[in-house]
């Protein structure tokens, strides 16, 4: 059973290539192949899960083959399976399968249908590879690959400039976090001398890694998670990522890829647990993210973006849970959240498919037209808000309890965010499905989605309703996913019952308030919005985070053009061409010297000779008598001298 886990990503990978190459001839233009593989993968994961909770598997399971080696360092390709892996596998395969089924309806008639399925399969392959990898190097590779798939799928409708821009933004923002991940990975390697997760965990357990080094590496790695899981302050990319098709948002930007950061922290939890600073960083980042994102969702009118902010906020909860020492709580929330948030996105997709707008102000009253979508959305919303006994109630309660056990302030932040969650979900629900239709043309056009889309909705709704209860029964999930190491701090004792009671009450009250306000007194929110316009504006502008990073980008651009000017006009023009210019000038001077001094001297000898010749020429009259006279005179003189001497 476990021996075949490695096939899961390979098969998905292969099928991506097959769809791209032969999709034209496959039934359903390749969708069938993708769905078949995803179904098989889900079946495998389900079997693994069942066996694991029955205790029939020898966990952790590990196997690897050498990939390449340099010097004494070896990189491997391998599989590491423990309870955490299996929990994640189930989430990934289940959501992937349902999303692929749903997409048949959603993407029908798209000119790049085949490519869409290939990308989905490639994403699933990378995500599965990330989940089961036995070493951090391959983990990192898959981490980057899911990022690229996300890039390709966000920008799937790339003719729309906003989609192309959003894809790029997502890629670069997450890449910013990945720089931290890369450096963290490198430093972790130099703490431990290995990439293998089992060895790293082992070394962390026995305290081989110095806590300071572990903390530094952990925080650096966490930067990667901040990018990937859209934590504060890198959360800016996720709302824009909603430019992609809705099923993609459900799969990548709600259930799986964005949870990869959480999964990574959980995967290396033993390293994090060595350093209270690292854990606190995780917890507080999560808490701040949960609060800020929830507050942004309060004023947003784009249905998918409300859900996106909600996702960011819930990811913050997961981080909060992990950072507060609630390992199981964080992962539990990841699991339940995957179902109900995927459900919400798919339901939202169904709505958008029907009315062709994302703007909630143009919707309203759709519950009559789209009953299945409405019911499932309602169930998902209840699960998200944390109304007992839906899934979110159990997991969020666990997270909040963990936060309270660690630090009351963390808990307070989480509780406020929970109240906001209930409010904005009530708002979204009411604006979309209740009340009077705002845009009659769109309302008339709306219709319930085909069964191929509602089917997955119903299945996910079922999971959203029961998964919390089912998994917490007999502590099934806790036995599967738990942390056996020692936390670096003491936890307070908290009463789960009290927390649950409080959380449930707050959720019900807040949701009720929201529903009442938006249903019966729609004037009040509008009035409040008018009155607190600066606050609403700040929330709309996402606390200026976008502007902040854009300023960064602008700075980079300015720097780049300044450097280019420097390169062109200084380094090249002055330093190099300047040399050439100087050399040329110097050679001109040399030439002048050559012409006017050296050559002139040579010429001068000639001139002197010439002048002398001219002088001597005067004697040559050509008249023979003159010559004779000279001879005569000379002879006379010599003769006189001879006689005198």
């Amino acid at each position, binding site marked *: 059973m476990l021996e075949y886990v490695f096939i899961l990503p390979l098969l998905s990978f292969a099928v991506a290539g097959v769809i791209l190459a032969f999709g034209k001839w496959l039934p359903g233009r390749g969708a069938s192949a993708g769905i078949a593989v995803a179904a098989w993968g889900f079946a495998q994961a389900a079997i693994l899960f069942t066996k694991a909770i029955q205790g029939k598997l020898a966990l952790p399971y590990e196997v690897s083959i050498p990939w390449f080696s340099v*010097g004494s*360092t070896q990189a491997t390709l391998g599989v590491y399976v423990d309870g955490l892996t299996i929990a994640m596998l189930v989430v990934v395969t289940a959501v992937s399968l349902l999303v692929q089924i749903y997409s048949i309806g959603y993407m029908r008639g798209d000119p790049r249908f085949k490519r869409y399925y290939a990308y989905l399969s490639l994403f699933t392959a990378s995500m599965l590879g990330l989940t089961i990898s036995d070493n951090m190097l391959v983990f990192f590779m898959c981490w980057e690959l899911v990022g690229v798939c996300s890039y390709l799928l966000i920008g799937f409708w*790339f003719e729309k400039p906003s989609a192309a821009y959003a*894809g790029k933004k997502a890629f670069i923002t997450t890449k910013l976090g990945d720089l931290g991940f890369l*450096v963290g990975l490198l430093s972790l390697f130099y703490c431990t001398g290995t990439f293998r997760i089992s060895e790293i965990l082992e070394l962390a357990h026995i305290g081989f890694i110095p806590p300071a080094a572990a903390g530094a590496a952990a925080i650096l790695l966490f930067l990667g998670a901040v990018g990937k899981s859209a934590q504060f302050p890198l959360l800016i990319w996720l709302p824009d990522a909603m430019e992609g098709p809705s099923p993609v948002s459900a799969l990548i930007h709600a259930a799986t890829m964005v949870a990869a950061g959480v999964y990574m922290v959980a995967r290396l939890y033993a390293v994090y647990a060595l350093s209270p600073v690292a854990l606190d960083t995780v917890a507080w980042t999560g808490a701040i993210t949960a609060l800020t994102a929830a507050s942004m969702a309060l004023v947003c009118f784009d249905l998918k973006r409300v859900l996106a902010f909600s996702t960011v906020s819930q990811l913050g909860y997961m981080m909060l849970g992990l950072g507060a020492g609630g390992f199981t709580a964080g992962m539990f929330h990841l699991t339940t959240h995957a179902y109900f948030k995927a459900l919400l996105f798919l339901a939202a997709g169904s709505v958008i498919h029907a009315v062709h707008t994302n703007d909630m102000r143009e919707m309203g009253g759709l519950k009559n037209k789209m009953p299945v979508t409405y019911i499932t959305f309602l169930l998902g919303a209840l699960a998200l808000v944390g109304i007992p006994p839906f899934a979110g109630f159990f997991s969020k309660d666990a997270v909040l309890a963990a936060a309270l056990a660690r630090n009351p302030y963390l808990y307070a932040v989480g509780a406020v965010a929970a109240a906001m969650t209930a409010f904005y979900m009530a708002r979204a629900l009411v604006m979309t499905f209740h009340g009077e239709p705002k845009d009659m043309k769109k309302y008339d056009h709306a219709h319930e989605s085909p069964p191929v889309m509602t089917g997955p909705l119903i299945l996910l709704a079922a999971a959203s309703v029961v998964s919390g209860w089912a998994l917490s029964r007999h502590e099934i999930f806790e036995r599967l996913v738990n942390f056996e190491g020692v936390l670096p701090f003491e936890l307070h004792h908290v009463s789960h019952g009290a927390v649950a009671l409080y959380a449930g009450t707050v959720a019900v009250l807040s949701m009720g308030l929201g529903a009442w306000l938006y249903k019966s007194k729609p004037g009040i929110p509008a009035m409040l919005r008018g009155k607190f316009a600066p606050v609403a504006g700040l929330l709309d502008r996402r606390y200026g985070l976008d502007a902040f990073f854009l300023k960064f980008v602008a700075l980079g651009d300015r720097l780049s*053009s300044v450097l*280019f000017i420097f*390169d062109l006009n200084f380094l090249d023009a002055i330093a190099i061409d300047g040399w050439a210019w100087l050399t040329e000038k110097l050679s001109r001077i040399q030439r002048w010297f050559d012409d006017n001094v050296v050559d002139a001297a040579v010429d001068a000898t000639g001139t002197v000779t010439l002048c002398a010749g001219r002088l001597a020429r005067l004697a040559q009259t050509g008249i023979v008598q003159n010559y004779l006279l000279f001879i005569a005179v000379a002879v006379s003189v010599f003769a006189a001298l001879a006689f005198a001497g």
Partner: protein
Amino acid sequence: MSLLSLIVFAPLAGALLILAIPNTRTKAIQGVAAASSAVCMIFSGYLYYAFDKSTAAMQFIEKVSWIPAFNISYHLGVDGLSVTIVALTALLTLVSIIYSFNITLRVKEFFFWFLLLEVGMLGVFVSLDLFLFYVFWELTLVPMYFLIGVWGGPQKEYAAIKFFVYTLFGSLVMLLGILALYFNSAPHTFDMLELARQSSLFPLNFQIWVFLALYLGFAIKIPAFPFHTWLPLAHVEAPTGVSVLLAGILLKMGIYGLLRVSFPVLPLAAKWFMPFFIVIAVINIIYGALVAMAQKDLKKMVAYSSINHMGYCMLGMAAMTTIGFNGAVLQMVTHGLITGSLFLLVGVIYDRAHTRDIDAFGGLGARFPIFAGLMTIQVMASLGLPGLAGFVSEFLCFLGAFEAWPYYVAASAIGILVTAAFFLRMIEKVFLGPFNEKWAGLPDMNLRELVAIVPLAVLTLVIGLWPRFCLDLIDPTITYLVGIVNR
């Protein structure tokens, strides 16, 4: 005649044959050029296959005394350091020749110079005698001068003369270094292996001076900041096929020279120089990336990104560790493949649209799926996407350098971000968004272009997924080399 000589001189035979063909018979000239470089490629492939992966020693050695009076010999050989690059050279030349079938101006001379260039490049990588090395080194210069100067773009004369004079300046200083080595060895020798054996006899001061002299020659070729300014100009002005070789092979001669000559022969100086070298590497990475971001011209962007990528090579070398050296050598190969194909792809679009201005395009992705797909793959490889070749080599460079220079490595990671930023921006502007109807009539890639580019893309993928394809050959030599350098 043995294998290495065959590899080096097969293109020469082709070049001489081309001289005998009349000007007008273009097809025959192209055929002979492709055939002789294909022969060279086949021999190199066999060399790659027959190479013994278990030893660090020189293989396929040929040694014939050439000028006995000065102890100069015709001494060839390959080890893990050079074998991959020899194969890369043969491959890139072959695909560039195939790509260059679209050249119509003075075809005969073009291919003559092209093949002569191949002789020079191959010779540099297989010669073990410094004198021979220098001869081949200079032999690359003249064909390149003509290839840029005759078949280049609008500023070709300026680019050609700049390239020629700049690199000639560097190599003359390098020659001084070589002569210094010759006269200080006992007995006087140009033999690289013999000089490496004598390295412990050279005092530090002497090593530093010689190292700097050699470094100047190599740094101009790499090109290391601040000696890089010839590169964008030469790359942009050169015809596509020549840009490929310029980026793919000629830049590697600098790195190769450092690894083959400077490090083993002058280990003390190399160690002395590393604190400077790492700074230069980081500057190359960040500066190259940032300047590339400012480019509006596709080809210039790729050219500046080469500076950035050579920075990774230098980063790996600065570590003086097995991992880093492996990364640097692999990076030479992967950069050759990736940037080579990027230049070809830029050539493809330029041949059609007659512009390389990034802002002039838009939405090409929908109409030219093959071109967009290949371009995206190679751009992703260039920005270090896992699963493609660039990632493995860059990661090894980072990993190798991190132990010795953690903060520099952390700083140079910014280069990755900037690279991603400008490449994605380029993709967004050229391939995404609404289609620019101006380019509606352009055809997608033709067979000639596919034959040239697809092999490179396939190799990019192969090395990315299975780096042992190269690393198994490289590693033993590098392990041995690191042993020598750190002795």
